[in-house]
């Protein structure tokens, strides 16, 4: 039945590592057009609204950067962890804990309002996220507990903790008992670069560069890569597996925490029960789509941000319900993940198999 088969390439294909995402996009465009047409929307206009319009105005580009900021920060952290085969899928919880820790300053010590306070908020945010990520790392190292599951469970715990805080002790006393904290003011709000783009965006850029430096120039990055390929060999790189696990978790947790305080102090302006529409999970997709590389993460974060904005634009311009955008997003991800296989494998015809390997 199957006329074609996949065959591993001796080395990842340079050509396909660039061409695969393009192919996936092309396929996605065709499939979305079919979907749009099936739902009764003019396909060309829908495509324009979905993929192009968000890129056509300054305002929208700024919003793209705002949306990409947390994805980029978290994605960069996760890329490092995944390189080491440490599957932190609880970044959403680390984001929440970072936001909580960083918000302690404006909520508990509102009087301390100077540039230093802002720096302290960012550092606390990173510390909060890192501390939350340290739990699964510790449990893995100490008890051999699967980090995929512990980190995921901790997401819910963090979310409920935040919920309890803003409905209880951290509720704005002047806010008619509604579940939100006091509004952040002055230096408790991150400085803005343009539109709503705040310094978090710059920090996200820094994170990507740090990731790149680590992976390509530092001994630790090398150890991480070795551990990912062969856990046994990692021992010879001078870092124990436990130490690598802990450090990559701390790194990814800190960046997720930074993303959290960035959202709260950068764009929302107060603490509330829901602060992230699942950036921690979306960033997993970003890291994987980006093939765990710094530049790939950069590309993937913007691409994913675009699908959010495009989906919203399509809702408005075409009256397309949000669930279509959601289903489309899932489909797009399927395609890109699928096309990526061409980087490592090539398609050969069954009959021609022998010549191929010879």
């Amino acid at each position, binding site marked *: 039945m199957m006329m074609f088969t996949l065959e591993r390439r001796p080395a990842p294909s340079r050509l396909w590592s660039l061409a695969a995402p393009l192919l996936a996009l092309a396929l996605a465009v065709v499939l979305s057009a079919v979907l749009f047409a099936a739902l009764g929307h003019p396909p060309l206009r829908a495509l324009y609204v979905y993929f192009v319009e968000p890129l056509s105005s300054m*305002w929208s580009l700024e*919003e793209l950067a*705002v*949306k990409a900021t947390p994805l980029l920060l978290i994605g960069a952290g996760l890329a490092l962890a995944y390189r080491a085969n440490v599957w932190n899928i609880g970044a959403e919880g680390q984001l929440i804990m970072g936001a909580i820790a960083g918000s302690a300053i404006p909520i508990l010590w509102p009087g301390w309002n100077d540039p230093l306070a802002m720096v302290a908020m960012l550092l606390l945010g990173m510390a909060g996220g890192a501390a939350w990520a340290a739990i699964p790392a510790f449990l893995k190292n100490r008890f051999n507990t699967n980090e995929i599951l512990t980190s995921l469970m901790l997401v819910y715990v963090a979310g409920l903790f935040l*919920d309890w805080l803003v*409905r*209880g002790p951290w509720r704005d006393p002047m806010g*008619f*008992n*509604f*579940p*939100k904290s006091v*509004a952040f003011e002055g230096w408790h709000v991150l400085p803005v670069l343009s539109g*709503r783009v705040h310094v978090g965006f710059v920090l996200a850029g820094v994170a990507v560069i740090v990731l790149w430096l680590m992976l390509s120039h530092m001994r630790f990055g090398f150890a991480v890569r070795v551990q990912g390929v062969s856990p046994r060999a990692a021992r010879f790189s001078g870092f124990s597996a436990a130490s690598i696990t802990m450090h990559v978790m701390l790194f990814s947790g800190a960046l997720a925490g930074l993303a959290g305080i960035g*959202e709260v102090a950068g*764009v*929302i*302006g*107060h603490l*509330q*029960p*829901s*602060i*992230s*529409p699942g950036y921690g999970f979306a960033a997993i997709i970003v890291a994987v789509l980006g093939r765990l590389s710094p530049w790939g993460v950069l590309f993937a974060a913007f691409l994913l941000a675009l699908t959010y*904005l495009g989906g*919203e*634009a399509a*809702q*408005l*311009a075409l*009256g397309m*319900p*949000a*669930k279509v955008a959601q289903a489309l997003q899932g489909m797009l991800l399927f395609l890109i993940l699928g096309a990526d296989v061409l980087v490592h494998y090539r398609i050969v015809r069954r009959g021609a198999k022998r010549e191929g390997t010879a």
Partner: protein
Amino acid sequence: MRTTLKITIAAAAIAGIATTAQAEEKLKVGFIYVGPIGDHGWSYQHDQGRLAIEKALGDKVQTSYLEKVPEGADAERALERLARSGHKLIFATSFGYMDSVIKVAKRHPDVKFEHATGYKRAKNVSTYSARFYEGRYIIGKIAAKVSKKGMAGYIASFPIPEVVRGINAFMLGAQSVNPQFKIKVVWVNSWYDPGKEADAAKVLIAQGADILTQHTDSAAPMQVAEEKGIKAFGQASDMIKFGPKAQLTAVIDDWAPYYVSRTRAVLDGTWKSEDTWGGLAAGMVKMAPYTNMPEDVKKMAQETEEAIRSGKLHPFTGPIYDQDGKLRAKKGEVLSDKVLLGMNWYVKGIDDKLPK
């Protein structure tokens, strides 16, 4: 053709629109919803209000919506998008949009904003909410009449003032009939999870409640009541289809009259920033037909509804004691809107402890 034109001109004249150019340009009205319109609850009812605008004002307006807009960073972008795409009247239908509305409104002084259930206003930002507690007072009275065991089960979402106020109004209504009436409260910590709501309903029945009321969105508790052969009150919409033998009545959110009148005000140029908190009298709260109850109870319910509508009766009229026995309103005194808006205490007679 000519008659249509005449009618249009007449309508325009009545509506006070100065130039025909303006009359031809449709007013774009935008909505953002926190849930999917498929929740058959809060967001669904708001969307019914949007459809009512289209129905009432026809080709003078064009409406659009964004659903599932998370409260937070995304809300501000969604509002900004609506404002930038030519919407001149925007309804933000969840409390958590408050700060985003204020920020975006500042940037778009020519756009009118309407924020549901919030308390921050500006020159171009109005707030509105509905006095659902009026309906809850009525169902409290009905519950005390109909319940044989003298105990109702209350499925609650989150301990915010809106919900606490509803519980208190229900209890005051019930106590006016039966001072010994009891309620049991379960917080499911969700607005919307049919499974959890059904579980809570079953638990409450097991603990002796023979009447259910809810401040969550789904019709699941009504289905449980129907199955167990007890009575229940619908929430947000008429849930009679889910409990033909169980539903006594339902407290219905009806945003249509408000939405249509506000849209009309923008068309007329009479829109002003206001705080609207309307109840039965304004038509924002409606009672579903009183069913499955004896005639005398029905009559009592109708009279209570009429008394509240005419302003003769205010559910929060003193003497009102709180749970700890503290006097909150003297005899004859009516609790102010400010107190009602921030309500975080239970009235006397509620055994539950309010989660803090």
